[in-house]
């Protein structure tokens, strides 16, 4: 079992970019921020290094950080430009009984990161959901298509904070 500080030190000494690895505190949780270009390598490292052995991805969630510039529209809805979307990875070593939270932030206008489904198989569907709901694109994903909304849905990403319902889907009226 390793503490958060020990894991952070290990990561920093193995991935030595300028802003690639950092830590922050959100609420009561310590979080390791990873740059999108490194997430796959960091995940591989965490999963396969002796003494870390993060063998389980508990959950992966996409988040709209809502930190861009907000413009209120005439119909009370908002438009957001700039800011970030984030992916949170809650991982655990069942064997060594320690847990960790990783966070990857990507630009709202270019939300591209790398898939970790080759490291943890269950990331496959989680990443599809994050793509479906928030619109984060995971490079190297084996099958990145919508998972909950219809495959031919063109109304956007429903859980973005500036989402607006389309008027129609396949001839069916969408709003109440």
């Amino acid at each position, binding site marked *: 079992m390793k503490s958060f500080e020990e894991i952070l030190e290990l990561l920093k000494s193995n991935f030595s970019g300028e802003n690639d690895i950092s830590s922050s505190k959100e609420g009561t949780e310590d979080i390791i921020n990873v740059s999108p270009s490194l997430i796959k390598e960091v995940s591989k490292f965490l999963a396969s290094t002796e003494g870390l052995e993060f063998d389980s991805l508990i959950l992966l969630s996409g988040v709209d950080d809502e930190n861009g510039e907000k413009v209120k529209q005439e119909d009370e809805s908002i438009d957001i430009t700039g800011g970030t979307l984030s992916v949170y990875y809650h991982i655990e070593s069942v064997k060594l009984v320690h847990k960790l939270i990783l966070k990857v932030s990507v630009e709202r206008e270019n939300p591209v990161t790398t898939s970790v489904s080759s490291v943890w198989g269950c990331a496959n569907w989680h990443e599809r959901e994050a793509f479906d709901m928030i619109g984060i694109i995971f490079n190297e994903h084996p099958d990145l298509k919508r998972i909950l*909304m219809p495959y031919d849905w063109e*109304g956007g990403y*429903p859980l973005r904070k500036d989402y607006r*319902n389309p008027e129609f*889907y396949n001839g*069916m*009226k*969408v709003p109440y």
Partner: protein
Amino acid sequence: MGFLDKEFTQDNIVVTNLEALLNWARLSSIWQTTFGIACCAIEMMATSASHYDFDRFGVIPRPSPRQADVIIISGTVTFKMATRIKRIYEQMPEPKFVISMGSCSNCGGPYWEHGYHVLKGVDRVIPVDVYVPGCPPRPEALLEGLLKLQEKIRNESMIKSA
């Protein structure tokens, strides 16, 4: 001189008109498509089970829409499902009837405002004969919905326009 049915000496002859006979036959054996969507489907299954006994009204689940008379829309109709419901409905032979069961399929229910994935009422894709309110409706409510449908069928006419 009594009524016409008293004129016959054998007692196994019934006199009626064709319309009443056809309607009686139809309303007494309404087969439902075996089709459930969400939590309302649990209540629908309870209605089919021995305690409430849908079968005493001639309702039995038929696992093929091509041989069913009624489809009970029992749950939240998502856009994904709406496409399929329309297709199942189109596979049913005439005369066919639709019971919309519960708030979701009536009007979107709790998803009416923020349900980006929910069709706000199944009547936007197929015509509905009877709406059963409730969330979910109790079996008694569904039974009453069925009785309403039977009433509707009983009053149908081949020559008068509805």
